[in-house]
């Protein structure tokens, strides 16, 4: 029988369907792995309430683990503690940047109304002279920015805390 550590390793072969450069481990979506009586339990949490990728992620986990010869698998969904971008690994942030998506910025202003705009450097030319186009981008977890210097439009993986 495999160990929990090996299961974590296997889960690094499951990619986020919407940001395929990230694994679900990079993203912090996998919360727990347990083995009990030869059965593997994987606990995952959604990034946003309406994230349409959860079912797909669940299916992909079962598929990847089945390919590794694991017969009995249960994937559970939990909402609490709620997912935060703080759980994204450093490796994940680096991969996002290389992929052309600006990773979450840590120093966000948490006040809801009239928060100071944050600086999101351009993933292409690294300029800090950029602007927010829309709080809501190509998926619920991203905002839409544009670089004022190289003019590249890009996604920003918004900070969620």
């Amino acid at each position, binding site marked *: 029988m495999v160990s929990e550590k090996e299961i974590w390793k296997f889960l690094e072969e499951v990619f986020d369907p919407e940001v395929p450069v990230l694994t679900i481990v990079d993203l912090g979506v996998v919360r727990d792995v347990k083995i009990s009586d030869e059965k593997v339990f994987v606990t995952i949490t959604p990034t946003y*309430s309406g994230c349409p990728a959860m079912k797909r992620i669940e299916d992909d986990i079962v598929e990847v683990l089945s390919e590794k010869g694991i017969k009995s698998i249960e994937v559970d969904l939990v909402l609490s*503690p709620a997912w935060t971008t703080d759980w994204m690994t450093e490796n994940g942030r680096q991969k996002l940047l290389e992929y052309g998506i600006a990773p979450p910025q840590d120093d966000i202003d948490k006040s809801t109304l009239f928060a100071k705009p944050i600086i999101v450097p351009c993933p292409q030319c690294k300029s800090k002279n950029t602007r927010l186009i829309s709080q809501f981008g190509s998926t619920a977890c991203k905002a839409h920015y544009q670089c004022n210097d190289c003019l590249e439009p890009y996604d920003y993986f918004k900070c*969620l805390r």
Partner: protein
Amino acid sequence: MKPLLEYTLRLGDDSLILGHRLSEWCGHGPILEEDIALTNIALDFVGQATNFLDYAAVLEGQNRTADDFAFLRFDKDYKNLLLVEQPNGDFGVTIVRQFLFDAYRKLLFEKLVNSKDDTIAGIAEKSLKETKYHLRHSSEWVIRLGDGTEESNRRVQDALNDLWRYTDELFYSDEVDAELTIQGIIPDLTSLKEDWLKIVDEVLTLAKIEKPSNNWKFQGGRIGKHSEHLGFILTELQFMQRAYPNMQW
């Protein structure tokens, strides 16, 4: 019906109906970015609705699912607020409706995070984070339109004058709410109004919009007495399951 089940349906129905309203903007947004923003927010609401209605199904214990609640209940069994079923109107109406609701939802979820019911607290914790983004979006647009051109100011003012009558219902506490407040599951809803008015006043001042002085107070959504609009929403929302029962894709 048990109070907790009843209130869980209220939360779920608010999310589902407003999510459906916002989804009606898909392909019709005034600009591409807003088309995407409104439908992104719709997705969050439908996700919240799924979480609440899943829990309602557990509480009921009658082998119904969240989908059964969404697709197979009639208007009289829906418990959403009148505000969320009001038509989209122009972009200004949609934004004002959203702002009034987002401000309330943020305050409500901030309290529900401490609910003595773990599932409600968990859904609230999850939803609060995205609700903050929603409120920022809607309040910024109220300001931008209100303090924009003469025409955009007039439209936002008209929208507020029209929707104001539905806002008192957000803070009514009936016997269901009162029972759950005693149990420590939900806050006293009437106590949210003061903070809500603070947010509303702050934004309206910046937006150069006047708060309506009328005191018309409509209610009924919580007991299934809806405006005529809900029936039309359900006709579209439920069409496939009504026409082809149990169909899946």
